[in-house]
């Protein structure tokens, strides 16, 4: 069973997830960033549900494990749509929404097909294997898509501060998990890493809540190239 420190980190993380939705509503940005808020709302509900399952059945119970992994698959799909929400905002002036939707559905279908192809040999608990594999694969797709979006932002010299911070927070979040995964593989016995993973889970809600609370939608960044004009 997790200790008081782990419970504390989990509680902070859950409160931050709820805070994102509250801050977005307060800054009148709920509808503009609808999928980001839906994802954070789902994360909040999943945390409450996981706590219920954990306290009733224990961490090694199959009930908690199934609830955890199925909710994780659902949340990863939510994160994928949150990322697409950011894509549509970055490219909104180019009027390519139709193509973005087409590409997003295609990529999701391709990932689902790939996940099914990996697990189809196991006749035992096929759906559970599929949900688990899809969650893992979508994580890596999200990682690649986030870096691609950051590349597009840099290339297009995007100046909307809130949008840039939201994407950067997502990039830091994915990168931190990837680095943590690599560290775990290097030294799996380091006990400090048990606390690092849940702390990393707080990065995204904390950054997004701060962004909705402090950064105005109209705030623009002044690109350095505009300051230095060549003669």
């Amino acid at each position, binding site marked *: 069973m997790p200790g008081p420190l*782990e419970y504390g980190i989990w509680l902070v993380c859950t409160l931050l997830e709820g805070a994102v939705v509250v801050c977005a509503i307060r800054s009148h940005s709920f509808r503009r960033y609808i999928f980001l808020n839906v994802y954070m709302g789902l994360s909040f509900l999943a945390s409450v549900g996981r706590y219920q399952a954990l306290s009733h059945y224990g961490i*090694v*119970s199959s009930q908690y494990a199934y609830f955890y992994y199925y*909710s994780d698959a659902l949340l990863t799909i939510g994160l994928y749509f949150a990322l697409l929400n950011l894509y549509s905002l970055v490219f909104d002036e180019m009027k390519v929404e139709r193509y973005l939707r087409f590409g997003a559905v*295609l990529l999701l279908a391709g990932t689902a097909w790939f996940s099914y192809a990996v697990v189809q040999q196991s006749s035992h608990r096929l759906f559970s294997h599929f949900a688990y594999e899809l969650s893992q694969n979508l994580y890596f*797709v999200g990682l690649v898509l986030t870096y691609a979006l950051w590349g597009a932002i840099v290339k297009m010299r995007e100046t909307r501060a809130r949008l840039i911070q939201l994407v950067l927070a997502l990039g830091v979040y994915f990168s931190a*998990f990837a680095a943590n*995964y690599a560290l775990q593989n290097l030294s*799996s016995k380091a006990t400090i890493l048990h606390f690092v993973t849940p702390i990393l889970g707080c990065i995204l809600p904390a950054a997004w809540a701060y962004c909705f609370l402090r950064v105005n939608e109209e705030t623009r960044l002044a690109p350095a190239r505009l300051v230095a004009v060549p003669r």
Partner: protein
Amino acid sequence: MSRKLTVVLLAMLVLVGAMSLKTVAVTHGDGSVIMANGGAPQPPVPWKNGGAPQPPVPWKNGGAPQPPVPWK
């Protein structure tokens, strides 16, 4: 038409890149998983060994106590 084909190409590129990245990460990893949603403690994967408890490996030392290595 060409725009749609470009979208298909980009989607396939992202998919291939992501799956290659995953293959590299999993191959060099210890089989653990990346779970990036929320701060809840991660349970063991329930379907890894079926529902039954995992028995000790029978061919490790047999039932007898392990003797000291004679050539040490």
